């Protein structure tokens, strides 16, 4: 398992493939998860979102078989893992939960080193890896490695939780509402940091939340589950906001879909036909900036036109119209 640095389409084989995976608990009539098929690409960040009881957590827990599926197949990295030894499988998959679940009588270093130790790494290699990971999640190794979980705040504990899941450098990470129990300000920070981290490490992530805003912010693609574990829509955030698949998705994303699109659409992705030739403009922008960020600067600078590098000029009205319904992502 090495850190995937290659571009995403290194192979056409998806990292995670669920084939008609289902869960039915004995003694119940309805499926906890109705047969579900899903493909998740390498390095992709997929968020499962939906109301409680929609089966999103059960689906997540079937990927590392904490919940054994009663039907279907699970493929990871081109290998059918439906019947392999579950402990071996889990050691190769990072797992983060809302309550963190750090082992209280073990130091931070021991907690992070748990999986490497089970995999038979030697002490020096584990120590080096712990140091690297603590730095990666923004905790000073010298100060934190020999502390105990109870000496850390909730936010710090979850950083350690993420470091522990990354310890053996698994290609896949499963995260069950990891930021759900953290105060809003710290949560925002952790989300930002985690996105930046993901830019570097490019793991394949399956992330469960009930918060659509968190989903829109983090996911490359979002799977919206409806009651009865129906997969209502599985698409990029922009697609979901632009063309909700049905009334359930529409009501789930709630009011303000158009305004939210402003912070998802990049100016470089606006239809080239909308651009005017270069000329005098109060503000300049790079193509990968979001419409919201550019509008913010234009409003602050009282400018009505922006020069997008290499593309041409846009007016405020162009940008607002481009974010409208017809602006399907390219």
């Amino acid at each position, binding site marked *: 398992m090495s850190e995937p640095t290659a571009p995403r389409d290194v192979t056409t084989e998806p990292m995670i493939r669920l084939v008609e995976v289902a869960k039915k608990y004995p003694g119940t009539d309805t499926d906890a998860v109705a047969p579900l098929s899903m493909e998740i690409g390498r390095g992709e960040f997929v968020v499962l979102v939906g109301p409680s009881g929609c089966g999103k957590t059960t689906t997540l827990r079937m990927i*590392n078989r*904490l919940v054994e599926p009663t039907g279907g197949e699970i493929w990871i990295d081109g290998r059918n893992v439906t019947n392999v030894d*579950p*402990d*071996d*499988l*889990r*050691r*190769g998959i990072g*797992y983060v*939960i809302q*309550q*963190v*679940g*750090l*082992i*209280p*009588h*073990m*130091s931070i270093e021991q907690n992070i080193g*748990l*999986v490497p130790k*089970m995999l038979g790494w030697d002490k020096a290699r584990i120590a080096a890896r712990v140091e690297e990971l603590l730095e990666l999640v923004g905790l000073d190794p010298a100060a934190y490695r020999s502390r*105990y*979980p*109870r*000496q850390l705040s909730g936010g710090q504990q979850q950083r350690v*939780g993420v470091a*522990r899941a990354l310890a053996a450098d698994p290609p896949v990470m*499963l995260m069950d509402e990891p930021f759900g129990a953290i105060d809003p300000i710290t949560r925002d920070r952790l989300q930002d940091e985690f996105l930046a981290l993901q830019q570097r490490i490019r793991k394949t992530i399956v992330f469960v939340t009930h918060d659509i805003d968190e989903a829109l912010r983090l996911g490359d693609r979002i799977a919206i589950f409806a009651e009865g574990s129906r997969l209502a829509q599985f698409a990029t955030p922009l697609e979901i906001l632009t063309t909700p698949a049905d009334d359930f998705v529409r009501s789930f994303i709630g009011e303000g879909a158009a305004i939210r699109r402003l912070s998802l659409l990049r100016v470089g992705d606006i239809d080239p036909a909308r651009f005017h030739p270069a000329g005098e403009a109060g503000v300049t922008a790079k193509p990968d900036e979001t419409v919201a960020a550019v509008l913010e600067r234009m409003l602050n600078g009282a400018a009505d036109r922006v020069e997008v590098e290499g593309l041409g000029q846009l007016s405020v009205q162009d940008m607002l119209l481009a974010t409208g319904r017809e602006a399907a992502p390219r």
Partner: protein
Amino acid sequence: MNFIDYLETNSDRILFLLLQHVQVVLIAVGIATVVSVAIAIGTERAPRLRSASLSVTGTILTIPSFALFGLMIPLFGLGVAPTILALTVYAVFPILRNTVTGLEGVDGNVVDAARGMGMGPWRRLGRVRLPLAWPVILNGIRVATIMVVAIAAIGAAVQGPGLGQLIFRGLSRTGGANALNEALSGVVGVVAVALILDVIFVLIARLTTPRGLHV
């Protein structure tokens, strides 16, 4: 002869019986600990069996110790064996009760995270659940020990070892020379053993409670 003089004159015998008493108690509690932890772990997936074993061992506690020792004579004769057996039987309940409580009290999220990282059932038990339950289990062992220190004195009824011999002999010749002193030395010895063991348990608890649990 006053009591202090009596203790001085008979210090060798009293000390010998006291150590014997401690020995019998520790052997019985040791066996009971192994048995109780094994029952607690073995019945984890059989809740009915678990509550049945708690009821049975709990009920045993209500049997008067004098009667239990007596009932063992036809089965195991006299001496050390029936004493240790009876004490073990008494010691099981508090340890079993606390082991069950301790294991049930372990945070389910911690166990879930351990499972999600690929720790198998035995590793979860040995590295996570038992260490976390240990303070509660140890408290059960302590309660059992103190309880059994007192009951062990009755073991003299089946010619068992320990301080009970002083008490029984003293009481059987009430009015005789030093009879009261003899019985009293046994009683004081039992109380002293209980106190000393209790202090030792406090120390053991300090030394063996994982650091991360009391930071």
